[in-house]
């Protein structure tokens, strides 16, 4: 037998320390939400807000302010210059909130401004322009993506775990109807997601779909914390971050389901012999080696991506790094205690052992 991180028959009392975990989660969530509130919502990248970015690579290290001064005379609205990637890359991002000027014009202007003022060679590596209409469309597409992901996953868990496809279908219909209704009011993306999630949690609770409730709670927890930390770190939201968030959703659930699977198995095996809390504790401990091992290997590769993956996927990797860490934590400290709080599934014996 190889190495062991977790000794067999380890029995840590996860349910017992759930209050500490709740406080920790609450602090993280509130900090993130507070940051979002102060900053007036997430900071959208050009994918969602529209505008133009130009990525420039300069031959030698240049002060951001020097570049800003160089392009300042162009009078581009909402001009922001920032450095990108790692220290030695000398890559800079010039961003303007306007998409009304032609890219040709911007490219030419930046070329002239930089060659006049910097006195070193440079290269325009990337230029992206998103018009306001497309930006709004991409925003609503991202909303739909997140919404359908949560919806389908909640339905899948309810059906698969509790063999209650009817309840799952009721939930799907209720959620779709609710969100459609809210959509008619013309609320913006953030509110729509919030409402969709509240409806999901409410329906899970009402229909006593406790496994789905635990899993969805953990997933919301992870997404909110990741979004909040991104806001605190002043990172922008663009399409790749949405991809990262959906990956986190997938990963977080993956992790939660493996623990839940064990809980379900133990609930059937030890019915009447153990309290539900002990069953959960036992299950989390039994899967602990796996949880740690898998998270460690996944984090290892994401860390490589973060450190060496280059400027373009840097923020994407950062989101994954946060999300996977939080996702691992939440499957142990959020999903299982929520399931504990609401009790075992109503009909565990109804299912077929496959």
């Amino acid at each position: 037998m190889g190495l062991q991180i977790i000794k067999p028959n380890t029995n840590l009392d996860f349910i017992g320390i759930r209050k500490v975990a709740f406080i920790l989660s609450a602090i993280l969530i509130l900090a993130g939400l507070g940051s979002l509130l102060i900053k007036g919502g997430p900071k959208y990248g050009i994918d969602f807000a529209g505008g133009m970015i130009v990525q420039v690579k300069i031959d030698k290290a240049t002060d951001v302010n020097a570049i800003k001064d160089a392009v300042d005379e162009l009078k581009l609205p909402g001009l922001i210059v920032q450095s990108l990637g790692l220290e030695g890359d000398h890559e800079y991002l010039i961003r303007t909130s306007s998409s009304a000027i032609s890219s040709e014009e911007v490219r030419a202007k930046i070329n002239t401004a930089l060659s006049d003022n910097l006195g070193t060679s440079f290269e325009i590596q990337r230029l992206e322009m998103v018009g306001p209409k497309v930006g709004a469309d991409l925003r609503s597409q991202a909303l739909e993506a997140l919404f359908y992901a949560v919806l389908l996953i909640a339905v899948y868990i309810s059906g698969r775990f509790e063999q209650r496809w009817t309840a799952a279908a009721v939930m799907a219909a209720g959620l779709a109807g609710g969100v459609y209704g809210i959509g008619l009011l013309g609320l913006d993306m953030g509110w729509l997601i919030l409402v969709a999630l509240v409806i999901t949690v409410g329906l899970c609770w009402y229909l006593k779909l406790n496994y789905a409730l635990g899993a969805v709670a953990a997933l919301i927890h992870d997404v909110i914390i990741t979004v909040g930390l991104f806001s605190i770190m002043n990172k922008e939201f663009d399409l790749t971050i949405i991809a990262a968030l959906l990956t986190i959703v997938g990963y977080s659930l993956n992790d939660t389901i493996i623990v839940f699977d064990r809980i379900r198995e133990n609930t059937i095996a030890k019915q009447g012999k153990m309290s539900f809390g002990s069953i959960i504790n036992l299950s989390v401990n039994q899967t602990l080696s796996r949880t740690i091992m898998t998270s460690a290997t996944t984090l290892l590769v994401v860390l490589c991506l973060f450190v060496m993956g280059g400027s373009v996927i840097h923020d994407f990797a950062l989101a994954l790094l946060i999300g996977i860490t939080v996702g691992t934590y939440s499957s142990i400290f959020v999903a299982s205690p929520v399931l504990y709080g609401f009790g075992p599934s109503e009909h565990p014996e109804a299912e077929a052992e496959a």
Partner: protein
Amino acid sequence: MQSLRLRAAIALLVVLLGLAFMLPSLPGVKDSSLGNILPGNGINLGLDLKGGIYLTLGVDMKTAMDNNLARLGDDLKASAREQDVYILRPTVLNESAITVTLIKAEQKDAFESVIKDYTPFAIEQATPLDGDKVKYVLSVPPKYRSEIEKLTMDQAIKTIRNRIDQFGVAEPDIRKQQDNRIQVQLPGLEDPERAIKIIGQTAHLEFKMVDDSADLKKAQQGILAPGREMSVLLHRQANGSYAESPIVLKRDAVLTGEYVSDAQVRLDQWNNAYVALTFNARGAKIFTDLTAENVNKRMAIVLDGKVYSAPVIRERISGGKASITGNFTREEARDLAVVLRAGSLPAPVTILEQRSVGPSLGQESIDSGVMSAMVGMALVLLCMVVYYGFGGVVADIVLLLNIMLIMGGLAAFGATLTLPGIAGIILTIGMAVDANVIIYERIREELRRGLSAKQSVAEGYGRATLTILDANVTTVIAAIILYQFGTGPIRGFAVTLTLGIITSMFTAIFVSRILFDLYLKNRADNAKLSV
């Protein structure tokens, strides 16, 4: 263990297939003799990896409809005249209706039968006016509108494709999207701005007669004789920019770009580039008649509403050739010839979204992406062997196999590998070991319970399979949604993620089991197992 041989054969077959599809992606293999017998051409690299342009174009459907209705109105006028029914020039009312005035009320019946027989119009309203005239409002049915929209989109795409083909880009990708949008992807392009200019130019070429008798001052104040319009004449400056001066034109085009069969760049005696046009047979006849009728008058060559040159017609020009001069640079003349040859866009297009990535960033992205993947993978391989011993070796073998299958799968399905796609593979590496970890932890549990190695392996696989399936389905759901709603690079990520999950289940559950069974096949029941 009779089925062991069968299972091994299946696994071997899949592995060979994967290998056959993956190998052409490796540099060196594609062009070798081995590359010739292998299927496919390897993995397509996305724009973010090889550089290039991604554009979303919006087709101005309102202008397209206006133009179409104006043309229908002209046709109506012509058809009416053939029946000796006279109407005033129709005007476009809105996106689905025109108004037209019938000069003599007694021709009402004749006119209405012309409408019915020759046009798709329906009469919405007919109002008698003073002086024996009747004013009609004519509309086209919604079905006609949607047909025109479809035709406009198809023609726009065809025109853009023609232009890109002439511009010479390998593997362009042009697609129709919803909301009258067109998505264009041009990989590996050096000069994005020039390409955008060529794609976006409407290139509506018209020949119009200049009205030199008009008073320019009055015209600039908006006082114009009927059937006249203002335009601007471009003069090229020494520094390359254009200056504009006003010019009055007769509104009706005497000839349009539709009659142009070819356009070429030529150099005149002073080495200035100009565009030589060749008309088709019908155009040549019109042009000959026109020049004969208008000797000593000026004819304006109008492109997208601007006059590039307005030469005086010295004599009748036969042979169907004309030229556009305008002090062009050679490159400008070449690009102009390209758009004229490829035909005009049926409606103006605007660039709604544009992403261009330089080839150097692309190379950097590949290098750093591949580098981080290699390092990440090496670390994971090491971890697994250290932690699980023999089991770790098995996990490593199937992990490498898994990556090979993902690459082969991407090549086989013709998917495009993007930077987020590489991230997807890297993430899969991390998550692929998950299945093995779940299985091994189960096997360890069974071993602790005192079961034999063979029994533990069988139990471990049996119990873990369903868990793995459950856990992965949710990730696949997320990936499918990403694919459905995402564009470009995000789709690439979704594809690799889905493929990665499928192949990792195959390798971790199916193939690794074979390796364990082979290992334990000829061993005693009480043999030790390093997991």
